[in-house]
């Protein structure tokens, strides 16, 4: 069983700050949907509105046929929510945490063990350990188990991978993919751009607005303009040394071991000569400029610049 979510020009203000600005989007049944954006982009606020922990200032949210304001009790019954800070009792053991969350949803660990088996198995050897003594990755899995224990139709995960190491993050996403196969709708938010490619569709968010809404492949496809990557003998000063390069170069960003460059309509040869000249004058060697394939983060940076 899964359920769709319809967000209809939702608005939310905190004092003077507009956390969400007339946001609209629809999430299909059974979709693994990602909200990608930095802190303050409105992801947590949106999730709290869907779970009806907050009331919108305008617009409405429907979970299936249910309205988030009036039918919030019904929504809460079918929703599994994992808040940003994992929401575990640090002085209770793994097992006690699970039992507690099972009981407040009127079920038991025994009855629904099969639902969380995939996740829980990985932490079961530590079931007597206090939640506070678990590593970040294990806490995250326990929190996921707690959110899944009552067989929700909609799973909402607020930054489940923040502060968690790259390996645990990968494992977590593998788990989510498995969960999705059981037919559950999953909303997940993350500040890590590289996780976008693991979702069916993503919303890139910035300051309460959507920058883009599409499948990750399409977002990358829609990237307009050319992108070049650059490396040289001295990557540490490269950004500073290029700070005065003018004539047609738009953006220069570090990107892992390379620098990504966008321009205002220059071709590869033109970019190459502008950059090489500038860097050579600053003492760089081995200057390589070549065409690059844009990633989600390039799109995000590009869209951020536009706004």
């Amino acid at each position, binding site marked *: 069983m899964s359920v769709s979510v319809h967000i209809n020009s939702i608005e939310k203000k905190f004092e003077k700050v507009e956390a969400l600005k007339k946001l609209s989007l629809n999430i299909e049944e059974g979709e693994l949907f990602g909200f990608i954006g930095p802190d303050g982009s409105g992801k947590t606020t949106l999730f709290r509105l869907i779970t009806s922990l907050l009331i919108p200032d305008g617009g409405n949210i429907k979970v299936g046929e249910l309205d988030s304001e009036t039918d919030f009790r019904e929504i809460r019954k079918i929703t599994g929510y994992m808040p940003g800070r994992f929401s575990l009792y640090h002085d209770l053991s793994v097992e006690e945490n699970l039992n507690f969350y099972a009981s407040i949803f009127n079920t038991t660990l025994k009855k629904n063990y099969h639902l969380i088996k995939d996740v829980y198995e990985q932490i079961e050897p530590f079931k007597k350990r206090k939640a506070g003594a678990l590593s970040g990755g294990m806490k995250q899995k326990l929190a996921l188990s707690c959110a899944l224990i009552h067989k929700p139709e909609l799973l909402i995960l607020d930054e489940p991978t923040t502060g968690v*190491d790259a390996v645990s993050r990968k494992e977590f996403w593998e788990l989510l993919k498995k969960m999705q196969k059981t037919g559950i709708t999953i909303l997940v938010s993350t500040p890590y751009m590289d996780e976008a490619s693991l979702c069916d569709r993503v919303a890139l968010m910035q300051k309460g607005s959507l920058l883009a809404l599409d499948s990750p492949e399409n977002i990358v496809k829609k990237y307009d303009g050319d992108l070049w990557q650059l490396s040289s003998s001295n990557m540490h000063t490269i*950004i500073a040394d290029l700070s005065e390069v003018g004539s047609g170069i738009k953006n220069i960003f570090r990107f892992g071991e390379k620098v990504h460059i966008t321009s205002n309509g220059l071709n590869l040869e033109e970019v190459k000569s502008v950059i090489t000249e500038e860097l050579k004058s600053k003492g760089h060697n081995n200057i390589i400029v070549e065409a690059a394939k844009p990633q989600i983060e390039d799109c995000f940076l590009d869209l951020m610049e536009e706004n």
Partner: protein
Amino acid sequence: MEENNIIVVEGLYKKFGSFVANDNLNFTVRKGEIFGFLGANGAGKTTAIKILSGLSKPTSGKVIVAGCNVKHEANKLKKNIGYMSQRFSLYDDMTVKENFRFYGGIYGLSAKEIKLKTDHLLRKLDMVENKDVLLKKLPLGWKQKLAFSVAVMHDPAVVFLDEPTGGVDPITRRQFWEMIYEKSLEGTTIFVTTHYMDEAEYCERVSIMAEGKIEALDTPANLKKQFKVETMDDVFVKIARKES
């Protein structure tokens, strides 16, 4: 020991009861180097950083940071290092200027020095008009940039950055790293942890810890060569997965 090494760690062990958090760590960090300190959650990074910054004592082994032995010169050490993390940074209920003044005071800067530095840093961060704004009103990215400026205000020999860019937007994250480069060129050693693997590439050398041991330590390029993979992400996964 080379004159140039600002951090020297030899045979560092740290045990909590029977649990070995740091198992025979050996490494050095040069003056002005940007040193990435990576590892899975629970691999022992936090323990090691606590020892290096004088908050915790090693069970055995020699640890020299900025010329101070962390075992019995912790107080002297603390004057020569800066520290910043995502969780602990600045006071939310004080203004930008008050935070500068407070931390400057802690590190024994004179009122005049603090004023000069504050003016200089605020101009550099383009935040002069925000100097009387309460910190909690500022976006996270700005706060983190401010926190870094405060952490290096007293020109420490080493600054420890514990996940300084978590949750920060991609543009600000890159601006943050430019600040790091600039400081390292001035001679401050940067000791940084991060979960963003692209940021690992920004470091001059990277160490990767797993289960209390340093499993790899080299430049990002050499590490990729050594593990025959394309990205630092893959290096990290190879090392951490091997363990589990």
